[in-house]
C-alpha cells in the first residue's frame, strides 16, 4: 500500500511492474488513469492547477485504500496524484490494484477512485481563454460514491 502526491508525471507501465514485485499470487492488475480533458462544460481548458492539503491528502488516500481492503481481497494498491500545473491530456491520477482475482481488483480500483473523488482534499482550477475558475463539484461523483453503500 502506498500513496504519492507529486508534481512530476508518472509512468504507468513502470508503476505497475513495481507494484507487482514480490507478490506471486497476483492474477489481476486493474489500473485507472485520469487525464486532463481539453473540453469542459463551458470553455476550452488551456491549463489546470491542482491544489491539495498536504498531510491530510496522504492520510485520506491511505484510509480509502484501507477501506477497500476491508471489502475486497487486495494484494497491493497504489495511488499517485499529481498537483500543480497540468496541461490538457496530461495524466492527473493513477490508481492501481493487484489481487488474486479480477473481480476484486476491478471493484477495489473503482471504489478507490469514487471515494478519492469525494473525500480526498484536492481542488482543480481551470484556466481558460475566458479566465480562471474553480471546478464545480459534480453530483454524479456523490452518486458514484453512494452506490457502494448498496453493494456488497
Amino acid at each position, binding site marked *: 500500500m502506498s500513496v504519492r502526491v507529486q508534481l512530476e508525471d508518472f509512468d504507468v507501465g513502470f508503476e505497475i511492474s513495481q507494484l507487482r514485485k514480490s507478490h506471486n499470487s497476483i492474477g489481476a492488475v486493474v489500473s485507472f488513469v485520469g487525464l486532463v480533458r481539453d473540453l469542459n462544460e463551458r470553455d476550452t481548458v488551456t491549463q489546470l492547477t491542482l491544489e491539495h*492539503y498536504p498531510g491530510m491528502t496522504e492520510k*485520506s488516500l491511505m484510509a480509502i485504500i484501507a477501506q477497500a481492503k476491508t471489502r475486497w481481497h487486495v494484494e497491493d494498491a497504489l495511488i499517485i*496524484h499529481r498537483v500543480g500545473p497540468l496541461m490538457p491530456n496530461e495524466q492527473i491520477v493513477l490508481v492501481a490494484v493487484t489481487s488474486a482475482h479480477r473481480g476484486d481488483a476491478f471493484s477495489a480500483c473503482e471504489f478507490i477512485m469514487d471515494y478519492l*473523488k469525494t473525500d480526498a*482534499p484536492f*481542488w*482543480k*482550477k481551470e484556466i481558460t481563454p475566458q479566465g480562471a475558475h474553480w471546478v464545480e463539484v459534480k453530483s454524479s461523483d456523490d452518486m458514484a460514491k453512494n452506490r457502494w453503500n448498496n453493494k456488497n
Partner: protein
Amino acid sequence: MKIKLFYFARLKETLNYSTEDLTLPDEPYTILKLKALLAKRGDTWGQMLMGKLKVRAAINHELVDDHASIADGDEVAFFPPVTGG
C-alpha cells in the same frame, strides 16, 4: 484554547488567508460555532463560511461535520467540496 486554521482553494483565495493561529475562549467549540465566530469578521467571511457555498471541514486531517468538537491544539481546515481525480 489555541488552534491552527487552514483555508484551501476558493476559500483561501477569497479570504486571502491560507493559515492562521487562533486563540478561542475556553469553552466548548464545535465546527459550527467556530464558523459563526469567523463569519463575524465581515461579509466575505460570512458568505464563504455560512453562506450558500458548501464548506467542508477537517479536524486533524479527518473530514468532520458541523457538530464535531474542537480541542486545544487541533488543526482545523475549511475548504470547498473536493474536485480531484
